[in-house]
């Protein structure tokens, strides 16, 4: 059998903690090989070792049958490996073409040949059906496009083995579908794809072989046909997990938030919200669906006081909240799970306790007369770590040493227990493993049962289908329409997400 990548006995320790424990993995040429596992199972670490970003403590790597010491990414790239990272590594001030050819610039008489780069980038993007404008600056492009650029970067280096770390976490269903079509075409060309994902449907739909990691060890490697989704879940989490629509009782219906005619601008000062109207009642989950970058983040930021609105009004409990500071809005009952958890949600260089304290530092029992009681904070943090299943050694760990999913749980734990009665939740399960996803969904439903008003922004339709009472679809800053959560219809939502009014579309037909 033709083996593209062979890892043997890979062990990687961070201080005393073992992130990868004697991992064996072999990936056949021309297959799509999925790696799944809970948050913190060691997936990213393993891929970083393979790509030369981390050095293993033990174990050997061979690529294309050749033993290899991957001292740096340059070595990996030279062997035909390419990696699309969980957090993108693009240079915002450069153009798409510059980013693609960074490190392998096309030059004429010693100078970088911009034109040729743009030309080649265009050819490349056409060839692989990844539509981007190579002359545009990366700053301000949507994550979907950024990912295409990352893939083009890899392709431009003639990679034959492509690693994607959670490529779909930030994509819409349509974008994901496109991506997988692309990946399929790659393997048909004889390339090899390794990808990490928390979406079991995806994994089942596209992969040929699946490896499950748990606590840094390989649980199993199987062909897809030998597995059912249920079995996979059991291997990963050790129990059954359900993703059906959650049962619910009617809420009290008391209006908590009402937004009317809200306008706002994005960072580039272009209109990002246009005449948005919506309302959320207590005991209700209102979902916002839409392709990422259609104003959802701006909506959340405006409502939480982080971004000024240009115009309009938003009443929380009947009182205007625009023009108030984030602190005041929080004091009036807002809890906010931000979409960009690394920048906004946590301070990576601070301990978990310090992260948990944010926003409640003036409250008892965390502080008394302006003095913080760190013991109480640690105690509370420990309790929250248990309740939200945050995998870390203790409250004094640095947030940055946690895996992506666990960082998200830290944010959720803090916000859900902050005592607000309006929850603004932006992408709660982005990059979170399925076990934890279920736990988070249960937690959101518990909040709903507590009569909280919840605005849930998600790009994942199955999540909205499972949780939301009503779904609003956003497109280019506008609310395109509303759909009942219980009777969600993927087709019409998909149309609205693409900016087509389903009613109008029906009329035309």
């Amino acid at each position, binding site marked *: 059998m033709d083996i593209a990548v062979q890892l043997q006995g890979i062990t990687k320790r961070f201080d005393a903690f073992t992130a990868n424990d004697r991992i064996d993995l072999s990936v056949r040429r021309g297959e799509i090989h999925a790696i799944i596992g809970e948050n913190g199972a060691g997936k990213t670490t393993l891929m970083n070792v393979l790509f030369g*970003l981390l050095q293993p403590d033990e174990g050997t790597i061979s690529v294309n049958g050749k033993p290899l010491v991957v001292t740096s990414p340059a070595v990996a790239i030279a062997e035909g490996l390419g990696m699309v990272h969980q957090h993108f*590594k693009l240079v915002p001030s*450069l153009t798409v073409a510059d980013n693609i050819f960074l*490190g392998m*610039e096309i030059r004429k008489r010693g100078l970088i040949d*911009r034109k040729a780069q743009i030309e080649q980038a265009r050819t490349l993007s056409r060839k692989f059906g990844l539509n981007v404008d190579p002359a545009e600056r990366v700053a301000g492009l949507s994550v979907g496009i950024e990912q295409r650029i990352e893939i083009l970067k890899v392709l431009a280096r003639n990679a034959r083995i492509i690693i994607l770390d959670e490529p779909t976490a930030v994509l819409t269903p349509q974008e994901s579908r496109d991506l997988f079509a692309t990946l399929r075409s790659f393997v048909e060309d004889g390339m090899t794809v390794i990808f990490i994902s928390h979406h079991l449907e995806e994994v089942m739909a596209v992969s040929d072989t699946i490896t499950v990691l748990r606590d840094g060890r390989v649980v199993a490697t199987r062909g897809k046909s030998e597995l059912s989704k249920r079995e996979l879940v059991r291997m990963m989490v050790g129990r059954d997990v359900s993703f059906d629509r959650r049962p619910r009782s009617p809420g009290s219906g008391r209006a908590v938030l009402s937004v*009317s005619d809200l306008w706002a601008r994005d960072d580039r000062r272009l209109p990002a919200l246009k005449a948005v109207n919506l309302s959320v009642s207590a005991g209700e989950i209102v979902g916002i669906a839409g392709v990422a970058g259609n104003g959802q983040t701006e909506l959340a930021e405006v409502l939480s006081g982080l971004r000024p609105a240009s115009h309009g009004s938003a009443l929380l409990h009947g009182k205007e909240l625009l023009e108030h500071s984030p602190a005041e809005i929080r004091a009036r009952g807002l809890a906010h799970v931000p979409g960009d958890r690394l920048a906004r949600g946590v301070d990576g260089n601070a301990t978990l306790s310090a992260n948990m304290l944010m926003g409640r530092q003036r409250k008892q029992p965390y502080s008394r007369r302006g003095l913080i009681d760190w013991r109480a904070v640690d105690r509370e943090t420990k309790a929250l770590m248990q309740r939200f299943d945050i995998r870390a050694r203790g409250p004094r760990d640095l947030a940055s040493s946690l895996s992506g999913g666990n960082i998200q749980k830290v944010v959720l734990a803090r916000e859900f227990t902050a005592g607000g009665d309006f929850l603004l939740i932006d992408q709660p399960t982005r990059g979170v493993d399925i076990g934890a996803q279920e736990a988070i969904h249960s937690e959101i439903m518990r909040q709903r049962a507590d009569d909280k008003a919840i605005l849930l922004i998600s790009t994942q339709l199955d999540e909205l289908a499972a949780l939301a009472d009503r779904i609003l679809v956003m497109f280019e800053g506008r609310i395109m329409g509303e759909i009942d959560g219980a009777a969600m219809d993927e087709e019409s939502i998909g149309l609205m997400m693409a900016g087509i009014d389903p009613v109008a579309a029906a009329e035309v037909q």
Partner: protein
Amino acid sequence: MEILATFFNVGLVVATIRTTTPILLVALGGSFTTKAGIFNIGLEGQMLIAAFFAVIGSIWTGSSFGGLLIGVAAALAFALVYAVLVVSFRANEVVVGLALNILAGGMTISLMKAIFGTRGSVVGRGIVGLPKVQLPGARDILGPSYAQLISGYTPLVYVAFLSVPLLVLFYARTRLGLYLRVVGEKPEAAETLGISIARVRYIASLLCGLFAGLAGAHMSLGYITMFTENMSSGRGFMAVAILIFSAGDPLKVLLGCLLFGFADAFSLRLQILNFPSYLILAVPYAVALLALFALSWRTRPKLIRETLETMRNALAEKPQDSGGKLPADNRP
């Protein structure tokens, strides 16, 4: 009118060019480190050590060019120490920069004592200054009083000003320039593409040393022909300030340096009006401060303009709204 003519004349422009040059040279050097994401507060020391060794070199070799080379070599040595400590040993760049400034001060004085047996200044003693470049034809075309605008400077003045477009090209179109920017802006990106961050930062430090060396040599062999203790006199710090607010962009660096050079040259002229010298001497710094504040003021969110724009957009987009179901007419 006559008073005005004594202030604003060709001489002012020429003086501005002279006062700008040393700061421009050292600031252009700092642009490499700034772009590569290193905050180099040690420019002052690199300049000073180069000024000293340029003088030594000029005496030893008997040629100004030899002096220039040796001065630059000294600055490069300092830059190398800086890079080793900051890049390889992860020392705090501000501490290292300040310490190297102190070291340069102490070293030049000790060496001056050891070599010349005096403290203070080294004048004469066979120092060969850089020649003045008389551009052929400048006098014929521009006439004697305007010819001095472009002709009759020492070579490094031309080097300084010509370097600006070259650096623009360097950052925009060369591979190294691109890498410098990437390493400063997003080191993770560089790292994953196999660009060695350490190597690029070393190169940036050394290029910085090169230009700081030229600046130092210009001070002691071009601007004037002597060495004095601490003769860089804060020009390196001034360059640091300009670098931060220009983010190392060569054109903005040039603008900042010209502004400061002009304020300097102009304020010297103001002194004959009998204002207290201490206040006059503060003028260039105050002007630079005001410029900084004014620039930041300009980029503030323009609330009024923005609101107007929003309203205009809102009205313009209204017809496309999907029918009358929105409460449309409560807009001011």
